[in-house]
């Protein structure tokens, strides 16, 4: 069966959006799929926002840059303003409701998965796990690949200095996947 998914992951610099983009793409590769990851940099980074695009496909991938993505993981308000309206109709929006009012996404013709990733990360004991919580929610809602594949790839994208945090990151991915709004 042909599989094709693309996702833009966007938030503030420091929220770890590039790391989860890398993680998702790496896990896709380990699943035997074709993947692309591209960090988008430019004037918009100066305002303190960061985003990347990941494409996962069973076929050869054409463009690594997507204007109207099938999915978006939105970690902050500026990212919702910029990318929310671009999501494909009936697409998927993972929305960090710790920082963004769910009301702001109500008019979009997409499936919204609201999830307070900051609070969930805090409850796990480390505020910096928020990116993993968000990715867990995306993997679960999109079905792009099994969550275990993403958890299994953690060791390849987390620098050796932080290896001891891998179990906690895996737990955060699970918490995001399990969250029920």
């Amino acid at each position, binding site marked *: 069966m042909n599989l094709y998914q693309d996702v833009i992951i966007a938030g503030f610099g420091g929220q770890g959006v590039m790391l989860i983009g890398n993680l998702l793409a790496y896990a896709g590769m380990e699943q035997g799929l074709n993947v692309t990851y591209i960090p988008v*940099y430019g004037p918009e980074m100066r305002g303190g926002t960061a985003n990347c695009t990941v494409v996962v496909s069973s076929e050869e991938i*054409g463009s*690594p840059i997507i204007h109207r993505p099938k999915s978006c993981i939105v970690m902050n308000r500026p990212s919702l303003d910029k990318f929310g309206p671009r999501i494909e109709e009936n697409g998927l929006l993972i929305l960090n409701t710790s920082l963004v009012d769910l009301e702001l996404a109500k008019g979009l013709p997409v499936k919204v998965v609201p999830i307070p990733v900051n609070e969930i990360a805090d409850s796990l004991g480390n505020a910096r796990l928020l990116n993993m919580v968000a990715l867990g929610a995306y993997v679960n809602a999109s079905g792009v690949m099994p969550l275990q594949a993403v958890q299994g790839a953690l060791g390849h994208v987390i620098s050796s200095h932080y290896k001891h945090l891998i179990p906690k990151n895996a737990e955060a991915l699970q918490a995001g996947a399990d969250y029920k709004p």
Partner: protein
Amino acid sequence: MSDKRIFIKGNEAIAMGALAAGARCFFGYPITPQNDIPEFLSKAMPDAGGEFVQAESEVAAANMLLGAAACGIRAFTSSSSPGVSLKQEAISYMAGSELPGVIVNINRGGPGLGDIGPAQGDYFQAVKGGGHGDYRLLVLAPGTCQEAYDLMIESFDLAFKYRNPVMILGDAILGQMKEPVEPWKPEGINPEEGKDWALYGASDHSPRIIKSLFLGEGELAGQNQHLREKYEAMQVEARAESYLTEDAELVVCAYGSIGRIVKSAVRKLRANGKKVGLFRPITLYPFPSNELLELAKKGKRFLTTEHNLGQMVEDVRLAIRTVADSEFFGFMPGNLPTPDAFEEPILAALERK
């Protein structure tokens, strides 16, 4: 297949491909968006037993490349647009002296300092000479990280085969994106490569001179005639990817990153029953003119799309001039290209008839 693949940036693929090809000298000077190449090689090149030099300028780095190439060593340099402009004098001297170095240009926006995003504004500079004098580089334009790795290996073979500088022309998209790459090592690199012309001491042969200055009566004319014959011989290296061109009414010509982005637009239009195809030159010099002419003779119509004001379109028109013409759509540097940007112009060209 997953076990053999590694997940790397295009810039890293270029650096790793060069090492796999036996490159043992790198000379560079920092500039975005190619910095991952020297960053990677600053450790990997010494580890491979080679020399990594961060030069005092692009001019110095390019002349170090000339020197290493004159010694018959597989050597290369990398930079991005403004830096490549600074290297042109040495590149001209290398062409005139017939030296086999490799130059990587990760094209960024221009003119001038431009920006640090992707662009294709350096096409003319790459394929029409770039520096002074009458010369050509072999120019290869990868579209994926795997192709970047593969073509980097091939670039050294071509450089030594023709004793000619080779340019790898990428852009900020190729340099910064990550994809799975299956690394491999070529077999049978001739250890005697360059033995019959390189400078390594004259203990086993009479003294040699490598130069680009020809003042004797008829000498320069002879050299230029020789170079012309070499450039003609290079034409057999012309190569392109044809995607769904067989039954296409409109063939879209695009190279490098724009080629793969247009491929997504072509796929989408195909899904809607539109008969469009993609022709992606992989060698920009020699240009795959014959393949294009064959398509033109079959009655195809053409649209060339680039990330510039229109450069490769001139080569497309030259190739097909006796039977057809090409329309042009230029996506402006300074913006990030996506398939959506090309869909409308392709559709419009298809329906203009």
